[in-house]
């Protein structure tokens, strides 16, 4: 039983990354209607940002946790203005292809500079121990990852549902034309929202650096799962993304243990099942936006 709970907890930690990434993807999709394939590359850049700051400038993990998402947010906004913006009026496939291309360029730029071998990044000294969680001990760092992700996801949810800014963003997401007709400048929010999504991916990347392999392909391996998570949760739905993220994390961890043969395909089987049952995802709106 203890072992089972431990495995569930492990799934939640894995899910923490999925949820952070899925929330960013979802916010971007909701506001811009853009399926951002470059999200995995932003995550990778987040981890490399932390690595470069530490090795070249001696900047600690904690400072990187603040600086890197800010930098990626800025980068995302520039990318939105320069490239993505010009294609939003067209079929969503154009931006899908564009962001896929951006992913390849970013990955290869990093590869060119650092090669494909993973780069070292230590766990911050304060978090090298374990935390006692009632029934079992768990590495302190991973507990922090889970807590950080939960706080950020809850924060995003709070901002979107309980504040004026969130109200505008939600209105602009659901009915852009009507919101515009009511005098809200919808276009003004597009760029910051894209930057915010990119910043969340960057944050996930920094959090991943101490416990996962930091290499140019780390995002490419993960992004497909994140897409499946977003589809399961319902494209554009924040609570859906969070719950699907943590749910898939736990389901994968248990599947690894009890049904290893299925572990590579589980998430896609679930996605197919959800699509058959509820084509717009568990929490998605009935009408498809595309």
């Amino acid at each position, binding site marked *: 039983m203890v*072992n089972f709970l*431990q*495995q569930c907890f*492990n799934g939640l*930690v*894995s899910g923490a990354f999925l949820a952070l990434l899925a929330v960013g993807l979802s916010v971007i999709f909701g506001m811009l209607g853009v399926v951002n394939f470059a999200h995995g590359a932003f995550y990778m850049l987040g981890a490399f940002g932390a690595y470069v700051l530490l090795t070249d400038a001696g900047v600690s993990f904690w400072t990187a946790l603040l600086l890197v998402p800010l930098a990626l947010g800025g980068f995302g906004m520039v990318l939105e203005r320069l490239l993505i913006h010009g294609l939003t009026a067209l079929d969503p496939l154009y931006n899908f292809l564009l962001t896929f291309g951006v992913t390849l360029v970013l990955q*290869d730029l990093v*590869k060119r500079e650092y*090669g*494909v*071998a*993973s*780069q*070292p990044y*230590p*766990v911050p000294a304060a978090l090298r121990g*374990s935390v006692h969680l009632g029934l079992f001990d768990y*590495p302190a*760092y*991973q507990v922090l990852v889970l807590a950080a992700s939960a706080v950020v996801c809850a924060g995003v949810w709070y901002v979107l549902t309980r504040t004026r800014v969130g109200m505008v963003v939600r209105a602009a997401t659901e009915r852009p034309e009507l919101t515009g007709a009511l005098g809200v400048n919808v276009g003004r929010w597009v760029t910051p929202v894209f930057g915010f999504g990119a910043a969340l991916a960057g944050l996930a990347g920094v959090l*991943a650096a*101490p*416990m*996962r*392999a930091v*290499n140019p*392909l*780390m995002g*490419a*391996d*993960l992004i*497909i799962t994140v897409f499946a998570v977003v589809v399961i949760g319902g494209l554009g739905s924040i609570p859906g993304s969070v719950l699907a993220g943590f749910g898939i994390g736990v389901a*994968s*961890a248990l599947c*690894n*243990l009890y049904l*290893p*043969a299925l*572990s*590579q395909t589980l998430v896609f089987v679930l996605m197919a099942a959800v699509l058959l049952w509820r084509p717009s995802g568990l929490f998605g709106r009935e009408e498809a936006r595309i």
Partner: protein
Amino acid sequence: MRRAGIAVLVLGFAVAGCGGGPRAAGGKLSDDKIVLAVLNDQSGVYSDLSGRNSVEAVKMAVEDFKARQLYDRQLADAILDVPTSSAALAVATVAKQKKRLYLNVGAATTDLTGKACNRYTFHYAYDTYMLAHGTGTTVTRQGARNWYVVYPDYAFGQDMQKSFTAAIQAAGGTVIAKDPTPFPNDNFATFLLKAPSLNPKPDVLGTMQAGGDLVNLVKQYNEFKLRDKGIKLSVGLMFITDIRSLGPDAFAGTTFTDAWYWNLDQRSREWADRFFARTKVRPSFAHAGNYSAATQYLEAVQRAGTDAADTVVKQLEGYTFDDAFARNARIRAEDHRVVHDVYLAEVKPSAQVGEEWDYERIVKTIPAADAFRPVADSAAAGCTMG
């Protein structure tokens, strides 16, 4: 899409050819040149441990052979490297059909000298038997009797798992549990949590992961503090690039089998220095193996006086040699396994790392005759040289 990533890795090869006419031989060369093709991963997960620096190593062999450089994307006379077992086996089939030489350096599967063995395929640097026999046997004999083995669920991992299980059992140990893991995978906590709860508790966690997966696993192994819980780490296949990725302290004390080490002796070091001057990194054993394979091939062509594949094969079979990579080496005619001395190595803690990249302490040399699978076992595994 994950699968597609692997497919790209298999298909996304680059063929870099180096060729030249040996001067001494008065014989006949097809289309007046020899073309060596290095078929490997130029941008994916294996591009640092072999990749373009393997091409560089082969170029070094060609230059050392005093040949002029040519590039040609067709009519390759020999193919080298090919990491990734699944791709390696596919190339072996092509080599047999096309009757062209294939010197595999980068792949680990013993099937190359077993059921996939053929007249034109040679297996050069290492294989799963050699790794398992070195590491599995030694660690078990040192007292770590109970093993928990985790392996990536594809050709390489499955073959490693079988070889390790056989070696551990032959040395008197037990594999308590073995689990396939998704590939690629970034969360190994499932298995790291399971390890201490097994009954009896394993003495050692044997990981058959490679590249980024190995880095993920070791980072998390250290986080879950399994070493403190009495579960040692044993790595099935380690490249020097892996140690560099994590820093030696993450691996300190870990024993593994190495086909070659750049700072092994003066001769290795001299070659490694030349390699460093060109690439700014120290060579992995795969790099040195490619250099050696290209050199031996070119010399065989020179001795034969022709690049006709069947004649070159005759020159290679049974040949004994010593070079910067291979010591006390012999190319077995029966299964085309290139046997040579291999080394049991231990990762030094960073305090003992005197110069950059000098991460390994060689514990003992496993003589060529003992290091690889006996000929009789290759035959039993289906090698008929057909």
